[in-house]
């Protein structure tokens, strides 16, 4: 018994340390001596980077709030043509990462792009380029991020609206509030934590974004970090830039956790009655339907169609793309990473549960912060740490360099994904584990079942469905992930994300269409299978 506990301690400790690596690395690097490049950067561009990041952040927050809360409000409280379809279809926007959206936006509006072709087809030849608006640079980045991220606000707000019991509304009516007053005094305030949680997720994703800003050549903190690593080979500067970004993001992370804590409360399980919807008709129904349809079209159908159109318009890239290998690489990687993440998280959860130690609980709480760390920072910190660690071992014991095992290898890539998505897996499993009362385990022991048999007969069968769901959610995240894969992948190893990025950064958008389309397809498929779960809980 005591022996077992020691293993659990060791395991939890090791994983917590691993997940905390990037933060520790970034924070220690901050106190290292700085290079000239850093001084130059600090004096000239740093403010500029922060300013750009902030402008994008504020604009994206505003737009996602608008799109997310409005659409959640419409589908939760009104009946209009297609409401059940839109309720579900709006989450498909999760399948299109912001950088892929950026490619579509550019492909459509650029000189002699798709819009140009459509106008020409309609009205004949002409010089239309100067009349077509160009969504690039900052505007392009803001639009791309808003349409691909509003889903977070939509899903969380809708869940909060949905879980509000009609009892509350009835009570407020009984106390003399009108329907409108009930909405503003009861429903909206109690959805506030959910909205804030959704917006903080958007903010974290937005600040972590690398693909979009890099494509539109907007200089932000993330591109700054990437460039100091790639162009100047200056890990120290990269880490010092990371420090600033991390500070902002950690603040957001705490806001999110804090609000989410509050968001839990209004999920009454008993006496739950759904709020009856109001039927809309005539002009109002038309406006609401058009709003939802446009949002769905712009966020999902448009980028998918654009990528599809270019894929068939430029068939010669079919041969170049080595489609089988690309699918095999991406899917194997995703499968392996999800498997490792979910099984280890399950094991650690089980360990925490049976050892009932406060220390382990707190330790795991500490180790879940990985999700808040942008992929770029994580990847750079990962390289920094393992380079140092490898040199350290070589100096001390004369080991041959172990750098190659972790940097530019599948193992390293999976390890980095692990750090990034551990909190997603761990918390997902934990919240399901909490549904099993402790007395259920105890009953099983009392009926003569050992801890291991309790795991096999009670925990595993009970949790297997939700664990399958969690692994799919993680798979969706990994398929879309760009910067970690880009920086840490083995030489010449391509996934949909890296292939699309590689073509796009060589201005070969038409070639990027095929891998992008596959990415949307696989992510969309996985979202399709988990939509029920995403809509009900997350």
């Amino acid at each position: 018994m005591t022996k077992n506990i020691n293993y659990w301690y060791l395991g939890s400790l090791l994983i917590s340390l691993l997940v905390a690596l990037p933060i520790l690395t970034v924070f220690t690097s901050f106190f290292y001596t700085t290079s000239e490049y850093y001084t130059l950067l600090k004096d000239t561009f740093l403010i500029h980077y922060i300013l750009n990041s902030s402008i994008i952040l504020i604009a994206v927050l505003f737009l996602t709030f608008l799109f997310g809360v409005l659409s959640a409000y419409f589908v939760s409280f009104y009946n209009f043509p297609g409401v059940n379809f839109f309720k579900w279809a709006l989450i498909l926007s999760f399948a299109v990462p912001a950088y892929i959206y950026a490619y579509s936006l550019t492909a459509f509006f650029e000189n002699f792009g798709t819009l140009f072709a459509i106008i020409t087809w309609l009205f004949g030849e002409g010089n239309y380029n100067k009349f077509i608006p160009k969504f690039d640079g900052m505007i392009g980045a803001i639009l791309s991020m808003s349409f691909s991220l509003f889903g977070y606000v939509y899903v969380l707000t809708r869940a909060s609206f949905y879980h509000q019991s009609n009892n509350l509304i009835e009570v407020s009516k009984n106390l003399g509030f009108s329907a409108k007053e009930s909405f503003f005094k009861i429903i909206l305030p109690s959805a506030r934590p959910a909205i804030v949680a959704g917006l903080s997720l958007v903010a974290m994703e937005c600040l972590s974004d690398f693909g979009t800003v890099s494509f539109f050549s907007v200089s932000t903190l993330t591109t700054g970090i990437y460039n100091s690593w790639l162009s100047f080979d200056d890990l120290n500067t990269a880490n010092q830039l990371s420090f600033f970004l991390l500070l902002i993001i950690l603040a957001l992370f705490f806001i999110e956790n804090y609000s989410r804590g509050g968001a839990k409360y209004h999920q009454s399980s008993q006496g739950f009655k759904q709020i009856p919807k109001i039927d809309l008709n005539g002009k109002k129904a038309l406006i609401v339907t058009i709003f939802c349809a446009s949002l769905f079209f712009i966020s999902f159908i448009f980028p998918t169609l654009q990528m599809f159109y270019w894929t068939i318009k430029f068939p010669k890239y079919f041969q170049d793309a080595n489609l089988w290998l690309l699918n095999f690489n991406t899917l194997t990687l995703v499968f392996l990473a999800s498997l490792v993440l979910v099984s280890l998280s399950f094991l650690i959860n089980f360990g925490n549960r049976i050892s009932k130690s406060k220390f382990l609980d707190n330790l795991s709480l500490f180790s879940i912060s990985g999700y808040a760390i942008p992929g770029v920072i994580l990847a750079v910190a990962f390289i920094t740490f393992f380079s140092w660690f490898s040199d350290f071992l070589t100096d001390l014991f004369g080991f041959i360099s172990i750098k190659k095992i972790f940097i530019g290898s599948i193992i390293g890539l999976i390890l980095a994904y692990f750090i990034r998505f551990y909190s997603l897996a761990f918390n997902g499993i934990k919240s399901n584990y909490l549904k099993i009362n402790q007395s259920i385990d105890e009953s099983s022991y009392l009926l003569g079942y050992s801890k291991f048999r309790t795991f096999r007969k009670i925990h595993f069968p009970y949790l297997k469905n939700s664990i399958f769901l969690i692994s799919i959610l993680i798979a969706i995240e990994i398929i879309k992930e760009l910067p970690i894969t880009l920086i840490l992948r083995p030489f010449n190893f391509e996934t949909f994300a890296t292939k699309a990025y590689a073509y796009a950064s060589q201005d070969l958008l038409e070639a990027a269409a095929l891998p992008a389309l596959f990415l949307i397809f696989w992510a969309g498929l996985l979202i399709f299978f988990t939509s029920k779960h995403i809509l009900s809980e997350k």
Partner: protein
Amino acid sequence: MSINFLEIKNTTFVASKLNKVLDFNLTIKNEGDIICLLGPSGIGKTTILRSIAGLQKISKGSIALKGKILSSDKKHLEPEKRNIALSFQDNSLFPHYSILDNINFGAKRNRNSKYNFDVKELIKVLHLEGLEKKFPHQISAGEAQRVSLARSLMSKPDLLLLDEPFSNIDQSLKVELQLNIKKILKDKKITTIMVTHDSYEAFYMADYCGIILSQTMKQYDTPYNIYHYPNSIEVVNFLNRGILVDAKVIDSQSVEHKCLGTIKGNFVKKYPKGTLVKLLVQPDDLEHDDTSKLKLEIIDRKFRGTNFIYTLKTKNNDLIPVFVHSHHIHQHEVKEKFGIKTPIFIDHLVCF
């Protein structure tokens, strides 16, 4: 020398800082005895059961079953190796198994047990017919409690622990279940420790009752003795069945109360003449008599179905409860005068 079936020696049970039971001793001599532990909520009764079952460790003392040490400050046998069943107060059914599978979950254990149950029979006795294929979330709290009890019984434990087993069950069903379960436990000679805060339940079910108050076992005795010979003021207050009035011992057979006059009876403990004591007066000790000269003012009347409880006020402001049969010819209203039959005779004079 025969070995005691269960022996708990000088054990301290700690549930939380405020919530513990100190130096607890309990010996069950005979297999098949039913013991009830009574006490207010949050006193640590559940912790005692959990520690006996092995779900919690003890830091002091020892727990031994059939002469084998289960828990001590040095040893801790894992719960799955003790063959002690505990039926939880809250729902602890396995949510992904049907009711029947839940009941049978521990059935494979102890194939060689000296007793056995027929599942169908047990389901019938506990009124669980028709629920077999349902799942735990589809049944009521009271039903879940009975399923949990059935599951515990099916595992054929050496010792059965029940934590408030009837707390969620309707009053009407409760009485029948108490009857059925007592019969099962006695027929199969299953030694049981039951925790409850309902003294009627304890008095009916138990061979012996333990009263746990302010961190210790105050009294351990048969239900009859606990009721009639409570050994401390705390026990009287906890059972909340009578009141204590000031009186003075006048000889070996009687005491004097300022308002009620001389009260005769047999002292449980001897007191020297002239001692000032607190005498326990229970509702069934005084008799109503309309013709009596001793009249007291009624300040409250409670209808209890088979009887009324009148609360009477004496001159020196004692509030005395008196039972009167429901069929008593005429009822008395509050503020009326109420006659008490004199001289008063109380079988056992319990004084402190």
